[in-house]
């Protein structure tokens, strides 16, 4: 489903050149739940951003669903992200000025769907994560775990094939972290969604199908 070939990412400033990712080759099968681990600064998030088409590799190619996405225009990349990918972030990235329901509807605003359809899909997504009683709350009125569940609902509302989660339990206590992990496992198991998760937590990583370890931008396992 996702094939990364010889991916390199170099960050350049006037004086310094930093190699963030060094020759990564990775294949992720459809329906797989993969976790990526490694110390801080080893390039986990960079790799996830490259897979999520939020960042361009300096070298190498990315294939998703047998499509070489490296040559996509900005417009086409945006459409691809909207339809095929869902994102979950450690710091949730919810818009505090919008209700929970409006936050979840956001990805649907960038595709042709009616307001009624958007509402129905967003409500259904929130029901899946157990937040159907918080539709009209603002994110600031929710706990960290609830906010992350809203972020998961937003990631799944468009029915993407792939979910990319960047330390989804990083800001949560173990109880809430386990709840979030349960939701992701169920999504993978029941909906067949491919999930790539970056984590620092060995316990969480052990719950996934496969673990990839990075060190200094290179794959070590």
């Amino acid at each position, binding site marked *: 489903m996702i094939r990364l070939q010889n991916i390199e990412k170099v960050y350049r400033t006037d004086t310094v050149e930093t190699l963030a990712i060094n020759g990564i080759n990775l294949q992720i099968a459809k329906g797989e739940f993969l976790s990526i681990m490694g110390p801080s600064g080893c390039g986990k998030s960079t790799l996830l951003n490259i897979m*999520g088409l939020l960042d361009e590799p300096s070298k190498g190619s990315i294939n998703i669903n047998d499509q070489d996405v490296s040559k996509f225009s*900005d417009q086409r990349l945006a459409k691809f992200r909207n339809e095929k990918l869902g994102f979950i972030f450690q710091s949730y990235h919810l818009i505090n000025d919008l209700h929970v329901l409006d936050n979840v509807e956001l990805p649907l605003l960038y595709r042709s769907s009616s307001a009624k359809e958007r509402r129905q899909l967003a409500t259904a997504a929130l029901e899946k994560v157990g937040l159907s009683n918080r539709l009209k709350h603002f994110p600031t009125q929710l706990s960290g775990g609830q906010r992350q569940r809203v972020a998961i609902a937003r990631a799944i509302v468009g029915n993407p094939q792939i979910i990319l989660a960047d330390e989804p339990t990083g800001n949560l206590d173990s109880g809430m972290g386990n709840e979030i992990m349960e939701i992701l496992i169920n999504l993978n198991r029941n909906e067949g969604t491919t999930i790539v998760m970056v984590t620092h937590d060995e316990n969480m990583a052990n719950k996934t199908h496969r673990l990839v370890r990075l060190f200094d931008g290179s794959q070590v396992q």
Partner: protein
Amino acid sequence: MLKHLFKLIWNKRKQNFLFLSEILVSFLVIFAVFSFLTFYYQNYTKPLGFDYERVWTINYDNGRLTKNNDSLQTFYSNLRNSLKAMPQIEEVTYASANFPYSNSTMSTAVKKNGKRFDRVNFYTADENYDKVWNVKLLSGRWFKPEDAVGKNKSIVINETLKTAMFGNGSAIGQLIGDYEDKAKMKVIGVVQDVKTSGDYWPAGNAVFNRLDTGYLKDIRNVLIKVSTDADATFESNLYKFMTNNFKNSTIEIGHLSEMRDSKNEVTVIPMIIFMIIAAFLVINVALGLFGVLWYNINQRKGEIGLRRAIGASGNNVSSQLILEALVLATLSLVVGCFFAVQFPLLSVFDVPSSVYVIAMLLAVAFIYLLVFACALYPGKQASGIHPAIALHEE
């Protein structure tokens, strides 16, 4: 998307208060500027109604003249004949002090069927007034000597007053009352509107009253139409001639073309100053708007990164931010228009409604353009924000 933006803006109304206030104040100032400009432009495009070129005014002190009406009549008749005998003078007329471009005004009210028409300019003019000024008659005729013996006092009115009083009907031969509705005056002619206060001011309602012998003692001006040969030497000779006739009283000769320029400057110069002040305000507001939008974008980098991640293209982000600014402007403009629309509804300053309506439309268009221009560059910059970096910064 529009509904989404309204929701976002409404929920952030406190943060947007400064932006909304700036737009509202700017709109009101721009509305005032455009009201003036539209008013002046509308008046400027209307015909002048007379010729001022080669018309001179001779002003004198009449204190030393006899108060006897018969002697005065003879004096002024002789003066007219002497002046007309000069080859450089084509026409001579005596008129009240409120001739075109003078700083004198006289107004009255007239009545028709009990309905009162206020602020009517009241000019006193003799039989030659129309020839000196080349006033354009639309119907009827100008004064003749035989009007002196009519049952009702003869008057000539202007087009504006005629339309107000008689609509499309004929005014000739109609009787109208003076301000107390005691004496009736007979309309013998209708002239084109005469813009006596300069190119930028309306003619208003006007009644031309025939100068009779009883008014001669109040005359202080002789108006003459000169030929193209009238030069400085002639002016000097004319001055001497008038000084001799008026027993060395103070004589002033004025040229109507210069008086017209002065009169127009009185309107144009304050307007230019007002426009410069308004331009400074607009520049400040534009910089303010630019700053607020720029600040907003920096504050919302995380949101922009998120939108890019979930499917917004660079153009989507740019359009959203511009649209947001325009929606905000719309909210301010709704409030602004509520205040602005009171002006035509209440007929403030007796200015035609069309002036306020046009000014409102122009001000709305101007504000939209200003906001669009101020949002364009920050919007473009926002579209260039790298989503991975924006999400990481947040």
